[in-house]
């Protein structure tokens, strides 16, 4: 177990393409860090640099205080779980688990003990004599996990380990990985493109875009105060509504319609407004309202996603399935739940109006008046 320090690490490929641009992450001992981002954002490259499968072009990586830039992958004291499991097809499950230990000269008795322990933990004891091809996808995934566990490494590296599993198995394996990591307390670096996986697994999230870090933070922190429009649209499902609006005093103009917020921090006249779908509520009858022209509805069971337009600008609202939806509905939103972004840079302009209140509404703020 060890802390990992990634300091100003860059990856520059021959030809000058910069896949990772001066990324720094300080990972505490025992922490579960998830690197998340769309494909091509450099998350896997970063992980592979830590693993030693890609050369580090610039910067340093230290594991437990030891600089590992020029250390062989096998000597970095790390174990990796690959997306397609990467089990040795010609070895039995037992040999797959024992291989790394044998090469390190671990005594036979200890190998047996460690393999038995990992097999018990992962419930793969009945399959120890089988070859990987005789296992199902989920079982192979467990073996791949077991291969990492038996080594008792300073850190686990996961490269999209669940993407080859079906949806149901993915959810249960996700839970198991989290529990296992908590129990073993091993520092973990986990790569995924699935924001839900990232949210549920991470102690801290690192959102990457185009080789750069967009935001680092605890999952809820990232969810509630996204640092940029990119993070806002990437984290959370459905994606946060992002609308170009113009400000006039305390009013926000949605094209022809106007949202009276009552109070606004200093903002430019043109800005991008962010609203989470679940923060939009039906306005009470008689209230002034933002009129949403409903285009289509997605039924999710617990929720109903209403897609529509407000004066040509698309919005999605997550509403209770009990409410009847007319062709046009009146929506309202608490001003504490508005997010403001600079239209040109995409960066967040202010902290939320009342960050301490968190998910609760602030009593000091008036309900917005929709004109």
């Amino acid at each position, binding site marked *: 177990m060890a802390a990992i320090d990634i300091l100003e690490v860059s990856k520059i490929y021959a030809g000058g393409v910069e896949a990772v641009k001066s990324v720094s992450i300080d990972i505490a001992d025992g922490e579960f860090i998830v690197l998340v981002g769309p494909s091509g954002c450099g998350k896997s490259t970063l992980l592979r640099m830590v693993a*030693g499968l890609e050369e580090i072009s610039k910067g340093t990586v230290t594991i437990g205080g030891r600089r590992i830039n020029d250390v062989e992958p096998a000597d970095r004291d790390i174990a990796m779980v690959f997306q397609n499991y990467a089990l040795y097809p010609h070895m039995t499950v037992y040999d797959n688990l024992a*291989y790394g230990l044998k090469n390190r000269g671990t005594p036979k008795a200890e190998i047996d003990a460690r393999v038995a322990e990992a097999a018990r933990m992962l419930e793969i004891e009945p399959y*120890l004599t089988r070859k990987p091809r*005789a296992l199902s996808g989920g079982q192979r995934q467990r073996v791949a996990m077991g291969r990492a566990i038996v080594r008792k490494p300073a850190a686990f590296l996961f490269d999209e380990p669940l993407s080859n599993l079906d949806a149901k198995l993915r959810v249960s394996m996700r839970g198991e990985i989290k529990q296992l990591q908590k129990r073993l307390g091993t520092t973990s670096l986990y790569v995924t493109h699935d924001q839900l996986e990232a949210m549920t697994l991470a102690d801290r999230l690192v959102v990457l875009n185009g080789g750069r870090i967009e935001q680092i933070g605890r999952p809820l922190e990232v969810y509630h105060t996204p640092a940029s429009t990119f993070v806002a649209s990437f984290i959370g499902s459905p994606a946060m509504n992002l609308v170009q609006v113009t400000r006039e005093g305390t009013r926000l103009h949605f094209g022809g319609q106007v949202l009276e917020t009552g109070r606004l921090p200093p903002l430019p006249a043109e800005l991008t407004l962010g609203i989470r779908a679940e923060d939009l509520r039906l306005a009470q009858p008689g209230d002034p309202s933002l009129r949403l022209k409903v285009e289509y509805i997605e039924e999710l069971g617990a929720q109903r996603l209403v897609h529509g337009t407000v004066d040509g600008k698309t919005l999605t609202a997550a509403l209770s399935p009990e409410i009847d939806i007319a062709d046009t509905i009146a929506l309202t939103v608490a001003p504490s739940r508005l997010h403001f972004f600079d239209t040109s840079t995409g960066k967040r302009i202010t902290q939320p109006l009342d960050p301490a209140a968190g998910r609760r509404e602030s009593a000091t703020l008036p309900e917005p008046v929709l004109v």
Partner: protein
Amino acid sequence: MTHAPSLSPTSPAVPTAGGFFRRFRSAPAEPHFAKRVQFNSPLLPYLFLAPQMAIIFVFFYWPSVQAIQSSFYLEDPFGFGSTFVGLANYTDVLKSGEYRGIARFTAVFTAAVTFFSLAIGLLLAVKADGVIRGNGTYKTLLIWVYAIAPPVAGLMGMMFFDQHIGPLVKFAAVFGWDMKVGLNYNDTAIAMIVVSVWKQIPYNFIFFLSGLQGIPVSVREAALMDCRAGFRRFWTVTLPLLAPTAFFLLIINTTYALFDTFGIIDVMVKDKAANNPISLVYKVYMDGFRGNDLGGSSAQSVILMLVVFVLTIFQFRFIERRVHYN
């Protein structure tokens, strides 16, 4: 620990050649519940098979039967008739010290050619697989040799080992080795092996290279994290995963060394003193077509056929078992 008896689709107890080639070529998850085709007429499938069967019959079974038949007869050199002599041709051949000497040489020659052409081909493939820049050129240069016809290879080999201009003879002379290819039995044997190996390397190289590239990158990367020593990694992960390719090449190379080196041997020993080493196939040719002893020659080829048959069964029975088909 429990066994996983029926679940692992391992090879059947007695693998067949058909099974081998099917497994060698097909993708891993080729369904064994392949679609059964229904024909309207029961004769139709036989009709489809007929051209292939005709070729096999005309070029394999018929000559084989002819060979077996004539091996029991003493043929008149001028074709005026033949006399049934029973197993006399066989006993003559097997009693002959010359024949046994040639058989010994053939065994050594085949083993050496197979081993070295496989080993060098594998070594080059592993190295080429690691080359990143300019690998296309590198591979093309290595594959080139394969385009040379065996007699031409033999001729070029002869020039390399020429008494007056051969660079390899001069090279040997540096170490005080007076190479006399064509005169000295051992020197000729070595030259023969070198040229035969040289000719076969590109073929093995292509197959090993494609085999290497068929090993999933992530498996190699996993090995990189599990095992520090490169050679050990190669021995425990890469080589076992190359086994299907290696096994296929083992059979092909054995056959090559036994039969297809005829052209090379022919160029190297033709019209030379009788002290030169030759292989069994060349002996069949010499006795049958130069010595006009068709009966004895047929007996030899029947023996050769049996040897290859036994060898192939042995390879499938005992070596293929250890091969892991992915």
